[in-house]
């Protein structure tokens, strides 16, 4: 596995992955050029529901990692890595990441509790794209937590009721169901809330990233279904965070790839002093450094995904390292790219700022480098 490319994956798996990548990239290049992306960002939803439905219907994207028995494709994190990379490359603004995280928790409840009811009801709808899911797990500081200060759950004669707020909920404004991390007494638990439930409210958190909206979800005696509790809930939260780390690293790979392509194309095209600016070493070397960042980050991201598929002992560390390095590199690359574009790179019209915004926000989402370093410090026994 040292090549980071998953030598243990079968030829079929690799072929599937390559097909998925090519099809998805082709579709997004056609359907979501910068102009279309900018238009989508102007809408209330912030993305094109038609395109989102097409990605679910034609490619089965929404059900990629959902088990086949619940209507999904049942694919692994190796394929998910490819998808996240392509969506990150196109700066896809639809609620894919949110649904992927919610589906992960719902699928995990089946082996944990033996209860299939919730999974059978919701997973097929997430898989076919008819319902959008998200996950509400962060406190006001953006850290994933089931600690006091977040959401509390109380068992009433009418069932569970949630109180409190969660922050940084991705795509909360369009979610049909929300997986919520809460404390039931002193016990961590995960719940499912339908967005039309009484006492549920979403308010936007306007931020730097224009292509990924987040919001605050508020719960006031909101009816909820218990998914898992105790150690199972803690495990589900850990697993969801792990999947987020893999996804954010893979998205960064795609974003960096876009920056390299766009900057190189511009450097070859743009002439100054009678020659393409790419012929100046300061420009050429900056492009090469970006390419090196792309290679490095795509290797660490794939390595982490394959470590997950193979369930190796280092998988958690690999995912943390991937998220940390990807976050730093992505932001650095977008800064260089904007510099290389010169004046045009600092205009609203150019797409570069959208990548810079995404990179900046993604690096810090859910604790960011501090959380990664703290987790790695713990794991390495420092």
């Amino acid at each position, binding site marked *: 596995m040292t090549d980071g490319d998953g030598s243990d994956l079968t030829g079929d798996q690799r072929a599937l992955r390559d097909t998925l990548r090519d099809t998805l990239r082709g579709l997004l290049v056609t359907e979501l050029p910068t102009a279309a992306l900018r238009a989508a960002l102007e809408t209330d939803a912030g993305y094109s529901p038609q395109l989102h439905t097409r990605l679910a219907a034609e490619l089965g994207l929404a059900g990629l990692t959902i088990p086949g028995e619940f209507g999904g494709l049942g694919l692994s994190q190796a394929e998910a890595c490819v998808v996240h990379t392509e969506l990150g490359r196109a700066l896809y603004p639809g609620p894919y990441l949110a649904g992927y995280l919610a589906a992960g928790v719902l699928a995990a409840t089946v082996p944990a509790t033996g209860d299939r009811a919730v999974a059978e009801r919701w997973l097929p709808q997430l898989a076919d794209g008819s319902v959008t899911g998200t996950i509400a797990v962060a406190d006001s500081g953006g850290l994933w937590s089931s600690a006091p200060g977040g959401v509390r759950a109380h068992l009433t004669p009418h069932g569970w009721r949630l109180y409190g707020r969660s922050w940084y909920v991705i795509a909360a404004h369009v979610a049909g169901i929300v997986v919520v991390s809460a404390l039931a007494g002193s016990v961590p638990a995960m719940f499912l809330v339908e967005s039309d439930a009484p006492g549920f409210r979403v308010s936007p958190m306007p931020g730097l990233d224009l292509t990924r909206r987040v919001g605050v979800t508020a719960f006031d005696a909101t009816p909820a279904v218990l998914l898992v509790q105790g150690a199972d809930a803690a495990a589900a939260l850990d697993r969801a965070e792990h999947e987020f780390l893999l996804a954010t690293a893979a998205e960064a790979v795609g974003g960096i790839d876009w920056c390299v392509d766009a900057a190189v194309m511009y450097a070859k095209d743009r002439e100054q002093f009678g020659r393409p600016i790419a012929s*100046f070493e*300061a420009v050429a070397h900056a492009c090469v450094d970006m390419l090196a960042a792309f290679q490095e980050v795509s290797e660490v991201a794939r390595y982490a995904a394959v470590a997950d598929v193979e369930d190796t002992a280092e998988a958690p560390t690999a995912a943390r390292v991937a998220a940390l390095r990807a976050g730093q590199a992505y932001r650095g690359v977008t800064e260089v790219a904007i510099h290389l574009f010169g004046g045009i790179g600092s205009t609203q019209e150019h797409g570069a700022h959208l990548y810079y915004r995404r990179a900046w926000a993604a690096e810090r989402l859910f604790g960011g480098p501090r959380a990664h370093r703290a987790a790695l410090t713990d794991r390495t026994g420092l």
Partner: protein
Amino acid sequence: MDFAEDPDHRLIREAVREVCARFPDEYWAELDQSHTFPWEFYAAMAKGGWIGIAIPAGYGGGGRGITEASIVLEEVAASGACMNGASSIHLSIFGMHPVIRHGSEELKQRYLPRVAAGDLHVAFGVTEPDAGLDTTAIRTRAVPDEAGYQITGRKVWTSKALESERVLLLTRTTPVEECAKRTDGLTLFVAPLNDPAVTARPISKLGRNAVASCEVTYDGLYVDASDRVGEEGRGFTYLLDGLNAERVLIAAEALGTGRAALRRAAAYAKNRTVFGRPIGQNQGIAFPLAEAHARLGAAELAIRHASWRIDQGLPAGEQANLAKFLAAEAGFAAADAAVQTHGGFGYATEYHVERYWREARLLKIAPIPQEMILNYLAEHVLGLPRSY
């Protein structure tokens, strides 16, 4: 604001350059390789009167300030002598500062004229293996009797311990438990080094090998009470007095080392032809050198500002620390760019830049690491809580 160069300073620069020109890179490379102290260079600098430049005129010195001393050391380093040259005279130029400020008249008369003339070499013994920068944690003890003190302990990184007749030695005279403050109870001496109770062992190190740094053991060394600097128990305060000035001088040495490296690198980049043109025509070569020049320029301004404040008697902690930080970074970056510019030859001793590089690296660590400078700026300038 007046940036015009003082005519005196220009004369100092030119005169020091003239002395240094007699000691080319080959001289320093040979001494560095053979681990030999630069006696001839030292004698020439003494003869020119440069060693006593900052010692008061009443004691045989030049009576000039830190600005002039920093110019001398910058020029020495910039000649290609780098830290081998600067360190051979640094302590003679500046090390006696606590004696000048706090020593008895008798002590000053006894030592300063000989230091100024270059006849008396002095070393500096402060840090210890277990103390590091936590100076008040030193354990070298000086126990008083009727006429003097018995000193026992171990110092590390005492430069020129082998060549020096005396050492400015920091000791603990009152155990820390009996002191109101940790900084109390430390006493400074002008102690003898050529005594059977003293053993000095050079430390094998990366660079600046013409000037050895030693681990020195004091096994019951007897020091006469008349060799005590100022009052007993106040040694730490006396040392603090000179820290800003020392930082500025070190910064000037880093600046000079960077200038030497940049001069060689630019000359090489102009003359070395690859792919049918001078390599300096490539931005990949030219830009790092231009950037090194820009950073050295900024460091130089910071040094001038700090030395001016010190000579005016103004508080200069912020400026001196800032100058040391910027100059150490800029000097090393210039040396590093010079090595890279030379390609494979940068690694060869023949081109001298590897020697500059090894010596420039030292200044990011000694006499105080960059991190401690940042601690100072964070705490004393920005008002952030102390971290250590």
